């Protein structure tokens, strides 16, 4: 199988000549999309040309490093699937496939398809945790947690921090990401003490990092590789309002 890749090339953060370039690659339907990029890069290296930089690591859909917009969709054509788990059987022979980086003000391009997502870490640092010192915990079974509650908390905790939600949103909003963490901890008894300050601080940090607000497009949920529900955003709104009322 042969495909034509139109890939965003950008030599550095300030490259003014950045743009799409076309490459033809021989691939195989059983190969992953990233393995196809590996083949392209090996060819480019043999020819003495500059290979394409992209983030990837675990290649099994859990680390959250891979981050390609494939034909306009973050993580490509298959629902609930990261880029690294996309296989070429999703595409036709002779397909023309456009590959771009995440695009958002808060995620500046470092090179080619690699972006800087450290803004997410700064949001988590602003309260995305339970402040418990090592050694201070009671017995793990001291506080029962209902199975359904634990399951719901898990659904939100499954976020891999890839940033596809931001890349898909017309406002480049990070509310699905922030909401997932706020909702996880708001559901659990361990998260109650800091519930209000957590929501308030994380939202403030989200704004400070240059992410937009939510205007209910739902694109984030549609591209989320872990199927995080829009309920996360609803819960984030509830939590921030609740915190404001508590302060008042």
């Amino acid at each position: 199988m042969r495909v034509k890749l139109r890939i965003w090339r950008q030599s550095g953060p300030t490259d003014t000549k950045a743009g799409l370039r076309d490459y033809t690659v021989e691939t195989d339907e059983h190969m992953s999309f990233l393995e196809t990029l590996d083949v392209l890069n090996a060819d480019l290296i043999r020819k003495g040309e500059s290979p394409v930089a992209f983030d990837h690591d675990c290649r099994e859909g859990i680390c959250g490093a891979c981050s390609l917009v494939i034909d306009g969709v973050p993580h490509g054509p298959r629902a609930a699937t990261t880029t690294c788990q996309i296989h070429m059987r999703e595409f036709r022979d002779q397909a023309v496939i456009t590959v771009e980086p995440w695009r958002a003000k808060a995620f500046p391009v470092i090179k080619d398809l690699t972006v800087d997502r450290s803004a997410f870490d700064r949001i988590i640092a602003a309260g995305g945790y339970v402040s418990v010192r090592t050694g201070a915990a009671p017995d793990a079974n001291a506080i029962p947690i209902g199975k359904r509650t634990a399951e719901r908390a898990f659904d939100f905790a499954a976020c891999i921090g890839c940033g596809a939600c931001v890349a898909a949103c017309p406002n480049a909003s990070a509310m699905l990401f922030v909401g997932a963490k706020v909702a996880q901890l708001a559901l659990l008894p361990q998260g109650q003490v800091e519930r209000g300050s957590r929501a308030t601080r994380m939202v403030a940090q989200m704004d400070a990092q240059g992410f937009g607000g939510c205007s209910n497009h739902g694109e984030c949920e549609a591209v989320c590789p872990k199927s995080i529900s829009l309920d996360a955003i609803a819960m984030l709104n509830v939590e921030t309002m609740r915190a404001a009322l508590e302060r008042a």
Partner: protein
Amino acid sequence: MKLDARIPSGPLAEKWDRHRFELKLVNPANKRRFRIAVVGTGLAGASAAASLAELGYDVDCFCIQDSPRRAHSIAAQGGINAAKNYQNDGDSIWRLFYDTVKGGDFRAREANVYRLAQVSVDIIDHCVAQGVPFAREYGGALDNRSFGGAQVSRTFYARGQTGQQLLLGAYSALMRMVDVGKVSLYPRHEMLDLVVVDGHARGLITRNLTTGEIRPWAADAVVLCTGGYGNVFYLSTNAKASNVTAAYRCYKRGAGFANPCFTQIHPTCIPQGGPYQSKLTLMSESLRNDGRVWVPRRASDSGRPAAEIAEADRYYYLEERYPSFGNLVPRDVASRAAKKVCDDGLGVGPEVLGQRNAVYLDFAASIERLGAGVIKERYGNLFDMYERITGESPYTAPMRIYPAVHYTMGGLWVDYNLMSTIPGLHVLGEANFSDHGANRLGASALMQGLADGYFVIPATIGQFLASQHRGPITTAHPAFAEVEAQCRAQTARLLGLRGKRPVDDLHRELGRIMWDHCGMARNAAGLAQAIGEIAALRERFWHEAAVPGSADELNPWLEHAGRVVDFLEFGELMCSDALVRDESCGGHFREDHQTPEGEAIRDDERFCHAAVWEYAGPSAAPVRHVEPLTFENVKLATRSYK
């Protein structure tokens, strides 16, 4: 090289408590005067950095990923062991200790393993307090499952994403300490070398992977948490960036490297699909709780679809050979059994490189017994992952699995305080050698990483700082400039290569040599051959490799080349270790030491020790030292899972 394990005296169950009392403490007001460098942010690194910062130390924390949350611990699926005995099924600290020593085939230190079992219960408490959403029963108590190699249910889990949830817990603790200013975080920074002054670890050199800046860091202690070296095989379940460089550089600076040949081949991975494969994907071995492993009884059936093979013609080889453990035998036993049936021509699935290398893991019986809903609840995400990769659904056709390199028990030698043979250099998690002996049991890696980081190093690092620390140092000391210059020279040399081959090609070639001769089954002739082939490949690397790009930019090919250079030396050390260890034990299986049924035969007379290798310079063979292992509480016995 002096190997003093510093194992505390006294009865096994009292050693850790007594040791903690006897350890020197650093006054709370003095802790902030110490700056500790933590390298790596997996379970061991993130938990260590957070806990040390909570104590008051200032921490510089480095990782190669773009965020600490992406360290490869994130990919661990199955679970984490703890001797809570919440199931009332006879578990205890002693039993977890015993199972781990036995599972490691009597090649681990009793004292370390006992401490690990003791601390395991605190880990679960702490993770729950952080908000880790472990699986629960309807009454709200924590759920457990049994896991490879154990006859009690002591494994805590969070669907098939336990590693992710535990790492996010440790990451959140780390980010909390970043927020209060006690941890300075440096993502996309790779440790290139260790700086040693008068025999003590005093700092390190990093490369900023975004800008290419190479710079020195002074530290009062260095804590290395850089994971394992499974990628020496090229194909493994490790993340693509996992590497041996930081650990190997410490070895070259004088840290002993223990048991490098002890690698774990995980029995349940998705088989290789073709020659282009870039990595292998693990399917959690928790699947073995409900899946039955089989192959056709006759080689003539091996090309036929599973559905066409009658029940009587299916060979459930684990259940038949190991009636009491059945499909739950330890990983090394299960892996070798799979290799054996495939080598005997009974493998299933497509032929890759001339052989069908896969066995079935069949859920039909469990789906019939429990219903598809229960199976989906237990393994839904794993089944989905399998289907995404192979295009086949495990609900309707048996999975195909085959062993793959997964974990490395070997690592830098450490004493009971987790300090290496270089004072000031501590090594945690998979990067050290301490607790798993020759084979790691399922759900024990997460336990060890977090035990080391949350509970051991916070107690033991004070001993070094209060008794052996040599006083303040800055990067103005000439040793820093010297090592930094060496790192720059290495970068320049790699970028100056004029070959045509991508480094990935050469890495694949190394992996093939390692898998063929230092993989699941090893023999003296093959290992000797591998040593020769690796030396020749290393030579060719410098003529054939091409490294594109420049030094002062994001350059993943330069990063990879540097790691492969170290793998090319390290692979030889592994083979040498495997060659000298003339016995079979755990994951180290020497074909010349097996029973007629293919079980491993240990040689406790000659090899009941950890082998510790000392670097002796570029043109001399490394020196092998031994730390004898004594078993005072567990009787040395032949492992039997029959």
